[in-house]
């Protein structure tokens, strides 16, 4: 689906004559033109290079490394803790035997061993929440090295902490949303979700005017929107102040950050899916298979607790684009919304738009009777 995204589409010629169609398009008059361009985009998109995934990537020796730095070099120079020393020892052993077993003819190269070592150390690491700063840096460096080795992707991953004096809030204007699902497209481009299964965090419900009954609503609409007699209500993870999902996790792989974002340590999650059962808003998704994100579609700007590449068998969800919002940017969905239905900001800041909405509009939240205290409010004009 993402492959045929309109916005992903065609690289049009950089310089060309202004056509009448351009004018039509700008003026929002001709949907026909729009559609045609879209189709062209889809066709050209398909002609692109076939997606490569981690499993079938060519051996990394083939790729030049743009960084100049040997992958994992920095790691090996670092002083090691007890746990890591153990990991290194076992890892080296394991790496040697595994690689030898894997290719009987060719001796394992230095890089093979190093990669297996890094992978093994990744297996032994602890919960991000209780890691020291040093350990956090190490695991991020390992993940960056592995991405470089396995897929040739130069990641820019951070694990930055919450900003001081910030508590995020989100408001959604149900009279503004037209159901175009532009937010979903923006989210998909940002968050490295599995393309093969069409994993989406945001769900836009087409509700009948005069009813808040989700039973009567549909999120599966395919027709042109907005449709008469309906309004559109988007759901995603509401980053509850009192999150039931956090309460139930048996290994504490999910928790609430000081800025209100509920995050998941994807590598600590064991995949029991108790949190999915506990969420009253159906906000969590599971990786039922190994996620597939074509290399050219990977967003390299990542956060350890945000949009980094996930693995099979872990739970994920919306994080208010933690990798963006902790840098002061808007979440991808808010930025992508063409109608201005999405308001995001710091509720502790009296000058913020979100505060103005909360103070001046009649707002409501979903299922307030459950006491989950979502940080996601709905309002009307």
């Amino acid at each position: 689906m993402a492959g045929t995204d309109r916005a992903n589409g065609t690289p049009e010629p950089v310089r060309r004559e202004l056509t009448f169609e351009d004018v039509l398009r700008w003026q929002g008059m001709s949907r026909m033109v729009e559609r045609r361009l879209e189709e062209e985009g889809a066709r050209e998109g398909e002609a692109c290079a076939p997606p490569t995934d981690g499993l079938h990537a060519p051996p990394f020796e083939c790729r030049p490394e743009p960084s100049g730095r040997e992958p994992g070099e920095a790691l090996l120079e670092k002083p090691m803790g007890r746990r890591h020393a153990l990991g290194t020892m076992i890892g080296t052993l394991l790496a040697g035997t595994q690689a030898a077993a894997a290719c009987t003819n060719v001796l394992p190269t230095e890089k093979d061993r190093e990669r297996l070592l890094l992978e093994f150390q990744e297996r032994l690491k602890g919960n991000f929440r209780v890691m020291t700063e040093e350990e956090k840096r190490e695991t991020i460096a390992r993940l960056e090295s592995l991405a470089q080795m396995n897929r040739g992707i130069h990641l820019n991953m951070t694990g930055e902490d919450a900003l001081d004096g910030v508590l995020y809030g989100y408001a959604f204007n149900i009279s503004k949303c037209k159901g175009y699902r532009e937010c979903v497209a923006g989210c998909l481009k940002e968050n490295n979700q599995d393309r093969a299964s069409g994993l989406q965090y945001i769900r836009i419900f087409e509700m009948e005017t005069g009813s808040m009954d989700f039973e009567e609503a549909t999120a599966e609409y395919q027709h042109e929107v907005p449709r008469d007699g309906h309004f559109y209500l988007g759901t995603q993870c509401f980053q509850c102040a009192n999150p039931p999902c956090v309460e139930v996790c048996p290994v504490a792989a999910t928790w609430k950050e000081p800025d209100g974002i509920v995050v998941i340590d994807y590598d600590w999650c064991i995949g029991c899916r108790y949190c999915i059962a506990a969420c009253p808003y159906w906000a969590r998704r599971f990786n039922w298979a190994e996620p597939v994100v074509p290399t050219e579609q990977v967003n390299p700007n990542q956060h350890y607790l945000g949009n980094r590449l996930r693995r099979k068998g872990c739970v994920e969800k919306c994080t208010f684009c933690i990798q963006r919002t902790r840098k002061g940017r808007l979440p991808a969905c808010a930025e992508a919304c063409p109608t201005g239905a999405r308001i995001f900001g710091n509720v502790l800041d009296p000058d913020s738009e979100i505060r103005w909405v909360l103070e001046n509009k009649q707002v409501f939240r979903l299922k307030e009777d459950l006491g989950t205290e979502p940080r996601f409010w709905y309002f009307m004009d």
Partner: protein
Amino acid sequence: MKWSAALALMVLLVSCGPEGRAKAFPESAHSDAAEHGAVPADAHATEGAEHGPAESDTHAADATNPIVSGVLRTVRSAPVVGFEGPEGQSFGVALRTPEVGHYPCTGCHVRPIGSKDVTLAQMHGNRAEHQGASQIECNFCHNPNRPGALILECALCHEREGVRELMPSTTAHLTVSLSHPNGRSGRLRNCFTCHNPDDPGTLSLQDGTTASLDEAYRLCAGCHFMQAEDWAGGAHGKRFAGWQGDRVILSCTGCHNPHSPSFPIRKPVTFPKIARRGASGGGH
């Protein structure tokens, strides 16, 4: 023109490759923007200079709405006139550049409106090529003595059936589908309800003064005062760049087509997969 002298807030927006920007807006239209009367000459220069190479986004351009996909790298803004934000704060309103909003005049008007040799050359040229018709004379619509004033009323062509077939290339604004503003009787008003008849590149406000197109919100607020209040407060409209830092928001025409302000009915851009369970699973 006080806004032209005003402090221009440079806001670093979502960065993106140069090809992405060019995709949505042809180079020619963009470079001519500087010459446009509505945009001060100094407003043009620094674009891209602020754009650090470190921040590279994978975002591609969105054809219809350049703002939303982060095409814009920098945007110039002027302080808002006549409105206060939350807690009485002042805020900036993005200036009308080819990248901002759906409806840049400079897409067609390659020379400043009001100058004597206004030609809608590019557009008419293309129209001519397409239609095989000859290029039309400006004077067909415009008063040769007062280029800003029109001889032909817009509504003449827009409202009558068959006009398009009869005179396909006679009016540059044929593509303007005017469904706004509605008069009290339900009848549409004409171009000069909002545009200044003496200089259609400016707006005439309800109190008789004029305002630039960049201050369209002042005109809109004349009727849509409720929306304007929400807009100034933050419940209506869109903010640039991020939730942090100086607040710069889009003017009304940044999102709404002033001639037909409601959003179009169209297909959604993505579709959900129900019963998602991995690559080979799913389906319903």
